[in-house]
């Protein structure tokens, strides 16, 4: 109806935006691996990650160059703002994991605002899921290594200060579900949903801007709204890209810190 008035077709974004054709497929132990745009993005993220650090620290200097200073700042940030506050003395032990999480997620996220790409692998739930499972395995393994299997279950599921009747019934279930079951799911969905929603937002703003621009006439008025919003959303997505990487890493750190703590 609207398109009838404005004389141009408007194609709203849909979940089909998240499905890509395979460039080619590889059969790996009976599993079909489809090399498509998404896989290319992940590989690009990996490549950028490796190359940036390679060039930054290939010939490290005590007085760092621009790239080295930048990457050092990133590492310092993960160490001082994520690992140290959550893990304290155990920070350096888990730094490789947290650094990988932070930078890998960030490099995947940032493609959401890369011109002509505008798509983040993080919006494909598989990648956040893999990382969340790794985080889940890590903090549970750390807990079991520290307390023993049953000791760890008791440690995570039982709140000693709660009244006994609740401690062994309702709270036990709640603690188990929230600490063991929910955590990897929230980690996954928080990251993936942010970029699914982010992609919809950007697509809507960009497509709307394009539509108004192409329709001509009165519809130029629509540009006044959609064009500034598009720019603002790009800035917002950059912020979200950093924020979500940070949140994923700091939550992982906090889960590990939680199971390392002596008390609840």
């Amino acid at each position, binding site marked *: 109806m609207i398109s009838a008035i404005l004389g141009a077709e408007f*194609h*709203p974004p*849909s*979940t*089909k*935006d*998240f*499905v890509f054709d395979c460039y080619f497929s590889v059969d*790996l132990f009976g*599993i*079909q*691996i*489809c*090399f498509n745009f*998404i*896989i290319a993005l*992940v*590989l690009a*993220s*990996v490549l950028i*990650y*490796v190359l940036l*650090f390679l060039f930054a*620290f290939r010939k*490290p*200097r*005590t007085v*760092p160059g621009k790239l*080295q200073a930048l990457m*050092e700042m990133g*590492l310092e940030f993960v160490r001082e703002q994520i690992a140290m506050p959550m893990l304290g003395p155990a920070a350096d032990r888990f*730094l*490789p*994991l947290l*650094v*990988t999480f932070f*930078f*890998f997620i960030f490099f995947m996220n940032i493609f959401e605002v890369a011109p002509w790409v505008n798509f983040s692998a993080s919006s*494909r*739930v*598989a*990648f956040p*899921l*893999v*990382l969340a499972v*790794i985080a889940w395995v890590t903090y549970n393994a750390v807990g079991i290594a520290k307390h023993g299997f049953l000791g760890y279950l008791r440690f995570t599921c039982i709140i000693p200060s709660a009244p006994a009747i609740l401690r062994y019934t309702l709270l036990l279930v709640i603690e188990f579900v929230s600490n063991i079951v929910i955590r990897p799911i929230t980690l996954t969905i928080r990251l*993936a949903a942010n970029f*699914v929603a982010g992609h919809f937002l950007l697509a809507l703003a960009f497509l709307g801007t394009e539509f108004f621009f192409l329709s001509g006439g009165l519809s130029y008025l629509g540009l006044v709204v959609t064009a500034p919003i598009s720019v603002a959303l790009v800035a917002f997505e950059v912020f979200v890209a950093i924020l979500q990487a940070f949140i994923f890493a700091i939550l992982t750190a906090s889960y590990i810190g939680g199971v390392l703590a002596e008390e609840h």
Partner: protein
Amino acid sequence: MHALIGSILAQAEEHGEEVSEAADLYPAAGELIVGLLAFAVLFFFTWKWVLPKFKEVLEQRKEQIQGEMEKAEATRGEAEKLQEEYRTQLAGARDEANRIIEEARATADQLRRDLQAKAEEESQAIVGRAQEEIRAERDRVFQELRAQVGSIAVEIAERIVGQSLDERAHQRLIDEFIDEVAPGAGVNGNGKGTATDSAKDREGGA
């Protein structure tokens, strides 16, 4: 309601528009494997290469800064030591200068005193010698005079004896003789007159 949505969907499909399906967002097995491999690669890269390098750089930087600070501290200490040394040297030099000036002053005083004493001594010696000479001269003159006086007396006596003389002649004789012996000496200038006068006085007195 349901029929309405159905019709909208149908319409959308008629227009060739895409329809969202939950399945579009599900993870694919391939993605999971690629994600896991990607993570593994990055994790090992970070663990085995990035962070050791990072640590190395930080260590190096720490060492360098520490080394530089220590060097600066050492330099400062050395400078302070040198300054202290210079200060002592300066004070020493000042003392030395004062000492030299004092010594010079003392030496000059001593020298002046010595010279004064010597000059005094010399002058005294000169005076003494002069006096000695005068005395010697006088003695010599006296001696000579005495010898002459003797002979003169003898001569006078001869002359007195040779002529008979009155008192007046006697006096005249003496005067003549003295004039002869020492013309213009002793009671000189108007010696004659004076001698005469004194003789007259003596005469008058007698």
